[in-house]
């Protein structure tokens, strides 16, 4: 069985098969009906003729039979005309009268039954078809046979039957074809609500979980499916909302205790211990923030209407990161495009990605060096550092969650680049890692 992707082509295919079958069977059936109607007519005509012959048959008082056919009937049965024949047979099988010169019966196989018998015989080339009816006259039974040469019958009725295909049958084909065209239109109309439903389904994404398939003008057969899909979307929306709320609550519940912890540590008398604890708390805070970022990214989808300015984002991030860099004896610089570099996407998320790239670069840069942020048109952010660079066999690994080159090093959970990758993917952007000619790594975020 050929399998079709679309319901439409499936219906049309089956429909064409049905039409082909109809196109073959309908003429055959009609032909058969026509034929049997013609045969019935013939049989009835034969019975009537036999009755007519019987009407003129008389048994005289002397025991002789007479048959006085009027001239019109005599002509009908004349040999010259050759179309009809009759014979009258008595109960001994003796032929009393016959239209043939030889005075023979028409149907040699006539069993002379009391019921009307329909019989056929061949005489030379001619095929005679007719009836044999019984009549009681006084004490005698006679059988009147009437036959018609079927070779002659085509003059009227068989013409119709034989010419059926030529004259009438062909019209079935254009009618069926026309029907097919109408059906194509009907199927298209009937399937339109489905097409609309699938179009609106396409628009639903994590950013637009409020959208639903329209149940209006959806046929009853498909309505349960649409309703089920909508209910699934309802549950999905709840799921997304719960996840978002969870992330928001988790942020609050985790960050407030960390703030308390940090504030408490600051009151410690032992400043050396306090400084070490603060470093630990800062590292932990960073991991918590990254985990929350990852949790938030699970339910994140881009609002297609949102635009972001890479230049603005990078300037703000550089301002934010500069004091941190200076505290570590490092520098930050921004270069590249002087005006706006606009891309489609969420400014907030892009900022998180670039921030992680900057933090990553700062972590790997030696003191005294500068982390360079370069913004380029039409939509590229590069973050360049003077660190050890990335080995070629690690270029894929670094984007995995919790991957770290050195597991013994604390303060990093290996989440930063995974966040960068996820945000880039959500924006259809590419993250490229290269090693700079003079040493160090270059991460590029390239927007389409």
């Amino acid at each position: 069985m050929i399998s079709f992707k679309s319901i439409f082509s499936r219906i049309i295919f089956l429909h064409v098969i049905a039409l082909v079958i109809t196109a073959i069977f309908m003429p055959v059936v009609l032909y058969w009906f026509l034929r049997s109607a013609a045969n019935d007519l013939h049989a009835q005509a034969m019975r009537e003729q036999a009755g007519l012959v019987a009407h003129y048959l008389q048994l005289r008082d002397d025991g002789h039979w007479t048959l006085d056919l009027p001239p019109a009937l005599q002509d009908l049965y004349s040999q010259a005309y050759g179309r009809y024949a009759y014979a009258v047979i008595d109960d001994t099988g003796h032929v009393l009268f016959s239209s043939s010169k030889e005075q023979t019966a028409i149907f040699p196989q006539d069993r002379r039954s009391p019921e009307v018998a329909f019989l056929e015989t061949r005489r030379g080339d001619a095929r005679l078809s007719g009836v044999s009816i019984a009549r009681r006259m006084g004490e005698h039974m006679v059988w009147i046979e009437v036959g018609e040469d079927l070779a002659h019958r085509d003059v009227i009725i068989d013409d119709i039957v034989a010419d059926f295909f030529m004259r009438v049958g062909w019209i079935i084909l254009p009618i069926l074809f026309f029907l097919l065209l109408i059906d194509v239109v009907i199927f298209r109309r009937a399937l339109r609500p489905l097409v609309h439903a699938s179009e609106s389904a396409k628009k639903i994404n994590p950013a637009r979980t409020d959208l639903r398939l329209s149940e209006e003008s959806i046929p009853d057969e498909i309505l349960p499916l649409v309703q089920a899909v909508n209910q699934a979307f309802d549950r999905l929306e709840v799921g997304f909302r719960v996840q978002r709320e969870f992330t928001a609550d988790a942020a609050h519940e985790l960050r407030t205790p960390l703030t308390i912890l940090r504030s408490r540590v600051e009151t410690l008398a032992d400043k050396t211990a306090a400084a070490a604890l603060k470093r630990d708390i800062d590292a932990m805070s960073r991991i918590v923030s990254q985990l929350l970022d990852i949790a938030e990214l699970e339910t994140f989808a881009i609002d297609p209407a949102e635009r972001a300015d890479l230049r603005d984002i990078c300037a703000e991030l550089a301002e934010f990161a500069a004091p941190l860099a200076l505290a570590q004896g490092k520098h930050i610089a921004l270069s590249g495009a002087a005006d706006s570099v606009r891309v489609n996407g969420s400014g907030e998320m892009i900022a998180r990605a670039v921030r992680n790239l900057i933090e990553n670069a700062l972590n790997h840069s030696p003191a005294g060096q500068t982390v360079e942020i370069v913004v380029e048109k039409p939509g590229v952010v590069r973050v360049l550092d003077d660190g050890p660079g990335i080995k070629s066999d690690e270029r894929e690994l670094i984007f995995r969650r919790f991957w770290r080159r050195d597991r013994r090093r604390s303060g990093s959970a290996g989440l930063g680049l995974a966040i960068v990758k996820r945000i880039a993917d959500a924006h259809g952007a590419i993250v490229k890692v290269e090693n700079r000619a003079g040493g160090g790594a270059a991460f590029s975020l390239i927007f389409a």
Partner: protein
Amino acid sequence: MRLAVVEDNVELAQLLSRGLQEKGYETDILTTAAEAREAVTSTRYAALVLDLGLPDGDGLSILREVRQRKDPVPVLVLTARGGVHDRVNGLRSGADDYLVKPFAFEELVARLEALLRRPGQMLGRSLQVANLVFDTESRQTFIDDKPQVLSARETTVLELLLRRKDRVISKKLVEDHIFGNAGEVASNAVEVYVHRLRKQLAERGAKVQIHTIRGVGYLLAEEK
């Protein structure tokens, strides 16, 4: 000087308040939105430290109410969420600055003092970093208590840097302050003034450093 600390976590509120008291501020702890609403309408605070996540309401709505009354009190917003969205919402609703939890207490104090030092706010007239002092009223600069002569534009740049100590001020901001809407400005004009100021301060023994953040702006910090 009296500060309001609006924070639903009592422990954190007490820690903050204790720390601020050590720095010489009086503090009122307000743990619900309702309490905060009442307090900020009846008391005149020098500044508000406002947590956005309150059990009985959003901190932002309090902020909006304060601003609707045209109350110019400086507001420092605390938020558990670091998203730009939250930040933009906070600043649009009238916050003067924000801090994302967890923050360092010194950072909180520094931000608060920066707000209180704004023109028209309560904290003293002088800005100080290391041995460098600037009197905001007389616009006089002192190094080791010795008055210094600086040009008007150098003084403007110095004030900007001092007001946002340890934070970057953008080149654009400096440009706007020096030249106002004077139209076309030579692209290196700001650099020239900053360079001159840096040289002057170094020559006169100020223990501060003006860092250039290339492509971004400038940052003044204590010399290490």
